[in-house]
């Protein structure tokens, strides 16, 4: 990795003051499980790394009647063991359990999970987030077996790597971002965007902001589930994933959120699938129709047509799991 300055602040304010106003100058270190490997691969080359490890008030989970507030430096392990999360937000547990590495669970944080960089192999080999080579993207004519099938009109073709963002979006969660101008709260959905230029990031966090908290509204009467299609039981990235939250009125779905993961440069909410579900009693056929609707606009690349089928199945199975009581 490139040489860098290491800052270890003890307060949010100090941390923010150490961050540069433009991307590329500084990076935030949370658990380090992604950033460090990114730096070793020279995919990130910050001049300064600002650690959040000593800022104690970024860690911990608080639960009130109306919401759950998760400090961004809370580890995946702490989340998995939290009684409030287990009782009130089982789909979050289900999502975290897909992180099949004890090391990642122990070191990785929820903030880092949401803001980890894409795993696109061209990005990791040093061709940049947009995989540029001789002025054009390597992805369409290259090996795109793991790339995007939705939202992939270019120039971004990578898939959003977060395994927890889809369920958080489906649950209507928000993130709190703090910067030099104060704090703001946005939906997790709004945290992500598809970059159009090589110097843009895949999220809307400003370079000198830190993600401090994830706020998940109470899931009253909701049934939710996450389904990942993954080649390996052991540590692996999902080929596709789906998160579903259903609000029920008796046997019928009054409100549905369906968010796909690993199919697009951002976590991919599917209003098409949601509309298919709303007002219906969930059955295998209805779930199947919602799965089809979710991929109706898919535009697979040369090697990833199979992911359309996998996304369809992930949505269907997540819906069935949720309908049958959920995670």
């Amino acid at each position, binding site marked *: 990795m490139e*040489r860098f300055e290491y800052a270890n602040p003890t307060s949010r304010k100090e941390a923010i003051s150490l961050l540069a106003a433009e991307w590329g100058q500084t990076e935030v270190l949370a658990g380090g499980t992604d950033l460090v490997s990114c730096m070793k691969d020279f995919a990130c080359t910050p001049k300064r790394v600002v650690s959040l490890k000593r800022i104690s008030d970024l860690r911990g989970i608080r639960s009130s009647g109306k919401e759950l507030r998760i400090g961004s430096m809370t580890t995946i392990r702490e989340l998995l063991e939290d009684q409030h999360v287990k009782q009130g937000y089982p789909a979050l547990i289900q999502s975290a359990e897909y992180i099949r590495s004890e090391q990642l669970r122990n070191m990785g944080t929820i903030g880092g999970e949401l803001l980890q960089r894409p795993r696109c192999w061209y990005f990791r*080999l040093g061709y940049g987030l947009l995989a540029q*080579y001789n002025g054009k993207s390597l992805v369409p*004519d290259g*090996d795109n077996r793991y790339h995007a099938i939705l939202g992939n009109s270019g120039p971004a073709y990578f898939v959003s790597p977060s395994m927890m963002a889809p369920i958080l979006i489906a649950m209507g969660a928000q993130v709190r971002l703090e910067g030099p101008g104060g704090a703001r709260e946005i939906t997790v959905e709004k945290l992500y965007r598809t970059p159009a230029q090589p110097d843009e990031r895949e999220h809307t966090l400003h370079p000198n902001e830190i993600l401090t908290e994830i706020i998940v509204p109470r899931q009253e009467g909701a049934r939710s589930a996450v389904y990942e*299609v993954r080649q390996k039981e*052991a540590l692996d*990235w999902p080929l596709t994933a789906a998160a579903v939250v259903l609000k029920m009125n008796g046997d019928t779905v009054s409100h549905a959120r369906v968010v796909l993961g690993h199919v697009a440069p951002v976590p991919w909410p599917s209003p098409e699938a949601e509309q298919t579900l709303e007002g219906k009693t969930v059955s295998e056929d209805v779930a199947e129709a919602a799965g089809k609707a979710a991929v109706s606009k898919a535009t697979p690349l040369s090697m990833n047509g199979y992911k359309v*089928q996998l996304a369809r199945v992930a949505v269907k199975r997540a819906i069935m799991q949720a309908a049958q009581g959920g995670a």
Partner: protein
Amino acid sequence: MANCKYEWPAAGDRRLIGKSISRIDGPAKSSGRAKYSLDINLPGMLFAKSVNCPYAHVRIKSIDTSAAEKMPGVKAVRVIMGVGKEVQWAGDQVAAVSAVSEEIAEDAARAVKVEYEQLPFLVNEADFDKDKTAGRTRQAAELKVGDPDKAFSDPDVVTHEGHYGIPVITHCCLEPHGHVTEWMGPQSLRTFSSTQGVSAMPAQFAEALNIPANNVQTICRYIGGGFGSKFQMDAWGLASAQMAKDAGKPVKYLLERAEELETAGCRPSGFARVKVGAKKDGTLVAWESDCWGTGGPTPSGVLPIPYVLDIPNRIRRHTFILANIGPARAWRAPNHPQAALLTMTPIDDLAAKLNMDPLQLLMKNADLASEGRGKVYREELQKVAEMSEWSKYWHPRGDKTPGHIKRGLGVSIHTWGGRGHAGNCLVTIQPDGSVTAELGSQDLGTGTRTVIAIVAAETLGLPVEAIRVKIGDSHYPFDGPSGGSTTVGGVSASTRRAAVDARDQLFAAVAPGLGVPADQLEAVDGKIQAKGDASKSLTWKQACRKLGVKTVQAHGKNPGQCMLGSSGVGGAMVADVSVDTETGLVKINRMAVAQDCGLIIDMKTAESQCYGAMIMGICYSLFEEKIMDNITGRMLNPNMEFYKLAGIGDIGELKVHMMTGPGYDERGVIGLGEPPVISPGAAISNAVANAIGVRVPTLPVTPEKVLAALAKGGMA
């Protein structure tokens, strides 16, 4: 040979041989006390890093190392591939630098400026027409036996034609390749090498460095995987020693993970168009194959197909593809896993066409196996059928049960040689009773240490822990490299001969005192005693004390007197899988193998070899692939994130049965490392076909390929 003094004890007399004994280095390994070459750190040691070429095929126009040389902390820089040299695969080492820290070495390596001239490259060889257009094909000699054309034209012969393949994979050793080198004097070198050939390594360094081989000592106490890829000193080994000399300091040069995957070895691929014919009763009569594959920029081995079964009329043509994907290196059972896949899958498809149970078809044709191994195969197929509950779970092609989870069983058979290699063992018995066995061998994690201890302990009538085994150092008596399943056969024979001779010397020393002729003594239960008369006995310690100030030493060799080992094994494997036809995911329910390897010294480590081989087989059947990019020519998955290996949840239940007893034990010791890794690809591919009713023609069997096969004409 009757009454040869070295021969293995009769079945009833074996106290340790054949029992299930835990490996003696288990605690050292599991507690982290075992020092691998990667763990060696010497005072003042420098760290070496490579300058890796980022292109698949280039000629080096210039190299400028001056900036790197000037960096503070950099102590040596060596060009590995000079101006004008052709680099044949991305990641190859062009130069190396040594510095006082890993970080400085890495910075310095990046400061080396190399200019390249781009040359045309080929990194994906599966499409034969493209290979031909690129001028990358080299025809090998064809092999023809009998009259295949005539056999195929017989109207009573049912034929099947298909296309099959198995891609290039890597060795992915957990401990990377490399060495720590240290000059002990102007002409004297010590290396801590991650190697499969401790005794053979000094000569390689000596020749390259022009120093006497006797002045080179190579040490490798423990190794984190080799699988056939770690016999050579390699360019990085030489550069390490050169830089150590330049700097006057020890140099540690072990590869990075990406280099390990990109440059430290490829298992050659194999693709084939196959035609196979049998009579309606399943008797195989004809075979024709056009095969191609690559192991890198130079021709690699011809795949021995049809495999195991010498179909009477057969023709095979093989074409080497010269591709810029890395160097071919022996990969556990070189050429056999590919040959098994390319043979046992078309035969399985033919069985389906004949409406035959493929296991019965193999039974029926088992006598086509060479060396009269038909009976062994029938016994093993019978056994593995029981272990896998074949009659309960096998069904004709396509699981007809409702739902999207389809279960299937598949079978394959394999063979290997495994004759013990040449080597030496020195057994020493001290007057205080302590015993050592010294061999310039190495334990690849297979149980070599344990086997040596068992053989010596059995021979001397001592417990296993009484034997101190000293291996992993070229100062010990020469032993062969560990390749081709030759080690256990070699070391158990040399150790047996040394231990018998040492024991007989001890008998001679104590016989007069006991008033018993030396040839009437035996060593049992920690005692030296008159055969059949326990009243005339000495404890081991008392006996050794009679040596006074003398030490007993005996040297055993292999080969030598008495038939202690032989060659040639069979083996049959069944895979039991479930396939999700909606996602194309394959889960292993169970793998079962019935395996022979002659006389088994340690049942536990023998079974472990089979477990490990099946896990490795699951990895290459479902996950592994060296994914190369056609545009940049680079490997896209030089990491353990996308170079996927199975985890504990991916391997299902593994069942092993070692064939022992009459017909097996009297063959003496035969190696076991390779055979059980050969069949998994074919067995798993066949199991998937049995489950979903259609062939996934190439490995690895990924979701995308399963879905594609189902879309083309499956049962879904």
